[in-house]
């Protein structure tokens, strides 16, 4: 990973945090690591635990950013989420997975899109 894209990712996560906070999410944890994967942001919104994956782009790709979360990536996030629930001893709480896409449009403005309940376990 080049320094440039690392910084882009870091910037994106900062942007996402402030965006979520403004939308009434309270951030619980960022960059939660497990062996199988990582969760960018763990937050809570109206009683629901939300695992957020942040996708940042330096340009607008042709496909929707939400499709950039591939099957293997989803599985990693789900694994990590399971591990999180186990480690924090959370049971019987509503959970969901959101995806935030951050990219620059043709007018060079930064666009943030939030996909609520973007995917689930099979």
């Amino acid at each position, binding site marked *: 990973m080049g320094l440039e894209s690392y910084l882009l990712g870091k910037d994106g996560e900062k942007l996402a945090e402030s965006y979520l906070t403004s939308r009434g999410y309270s951030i619980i944890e960022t960059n939660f690591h497990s062996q199988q994967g990582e969760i960018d942001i763990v937050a809570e919104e109206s009683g*629901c635990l939300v695992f957020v994956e942040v996708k940042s782009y330096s340009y607008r790709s042709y496909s929707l950013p939400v499709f950039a979360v591939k099957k293997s990536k989803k599985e990693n996030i*789900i694994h990590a*989420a*399971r591990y999180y*629930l186990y480690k924090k001893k959370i049971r*019987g*709480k*509503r*959970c*969901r*997975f959101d995806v935030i896409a951050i990219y620059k449009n043709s007018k060079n403005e930064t666009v943030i899109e939030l996909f609520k*309940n973007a995917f*689930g*376990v*099979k």
Partner: protein
Amino acid sequence: MLVKTFSAAILGLDAYIIEVEVDSQRGLPGQSIVGLPDLSVKESRDRVRAAIENSGFEIPASYFTINLAPADTKKEGPIYDLPIALGMLIVSEQIKRSIKDAVILGELSLDGCVRRINGILPICMSLKEQGMRSVIIPHENRDEAALVEGLAVIPVKTLKQAADYISGKEAIKPHKVDIRSFFPPEPEWGIDFLDVKGQGHVKRALEVAAAGGHNVLLVGSPGSGKTMLARRLPTILPPLSLNEALEVTKLFSVTGLLNGKKALITTRPFRSPHHTTSDIGIIGGGRIPRPGEVSLSHHGVLFMDEFPEFKREVVEVLRQPLEDGQVTISRAHSTLTYPAEFMLVAAMNPCPCGNYMDNTKKCICSSFSVQRYWNKLSGPLLDRIDLHVEVGRLKEDELAKQPDGEPSKIIRSRVARCRELQGVRYSGSKTFCNGRMTPKQVREYCKLESEAEELLKSAILHLNLSARAYDRILKISRTIADLAGSADIQACHIAEATQYRMLDKQGR
């Protein structure tokens, strides 16, 4: 939280009630369907998700377990989309009321529209027998469902409309139809016996066959009009009664042949399978057996063109349905019985080149190859064919003439009268036409006058007729006598009937 809705599954021509249970649990979001769903049921997950979102509802973030009970029978088809979607909306409290007494059926498209499904008529009939009172069905299926009286049929066009109906926001009137309006005063065939030039004796033979429900074998050279004549046979058969129409429609409904154009089939079916059709295609089959051509021609005509070209096993499987008027198919999963009360019309050439019986063209086949061609016909099956008719090539002057003869309508009225007569005679027994008489009934109803008996005896002697032919001739003469309105079988009836046993005369 748990919500139950009702749907139905179809097995053969009967349906049983399926409970669709939707349970939502907290935890990581997701969905699973249990209760032996097949692939099309499993795929409903994606259709339901898209339909819910595109109807302006939300997919709640919960883990849904969907159970189709009873859990030990396999569920197939997309008809559970609508009950699953409504169950998910009720459980997530986006619909504020629950529904207890209605059965819900329907496939969803991604935009939230409810699509038509197969088998609505048999499902609704079974549901009524099982005491259900109301059913929510796709709008396109409304006429078909409303054929069942005493069931409140609620047609819905979209998932949103169904949701509004259950929550009480929108009232939908139960759909009603007038069954009589489906029966046209004069059926539209587009073809008529008047179209056929010449061939008066074949037309007469087909009239006899139609009147008595006899099976027919047409033998003739290529281009003599066998197919044209056979196709016109349904136009002289008596119109379907309401019960018969419902039986035929049920079979077409489960096979998905209704196409949404007509809710009730009121004309007799004419099925003409190609000679490469497999035995399963003819008789029906599959993991869960589906009706084959014999059942689709129930109360109608099964026409087998180029009869000797059909594979031997295909022809042999016809024996049971021809005898019993129904066919029982057994598979590991289930054993089902479908009705198959049809008239068999077979057509064939007299030899491989087709000119064997032709006076103008020379046959180039060796006697061995002609023999081999005829040997393809199985004896037991020929046994079940009453009339053998030779269809000759038309002469030049006949071809140039305008079509003559009677229109189908007049012939049909005679046939219908004759069938009524038989209905009275056989009332109380399983038999419904002369072609289906049991040996005992032949003895009882086919009493001959002394003159007629003498004629039949001499026919047997001089034409070298077999014992098998004897019974057939009696049955055909009964029909001919019925057509003539005669209570007894007279010598002239016997004389005509012996004309229809061409193959016996040739010693085949």
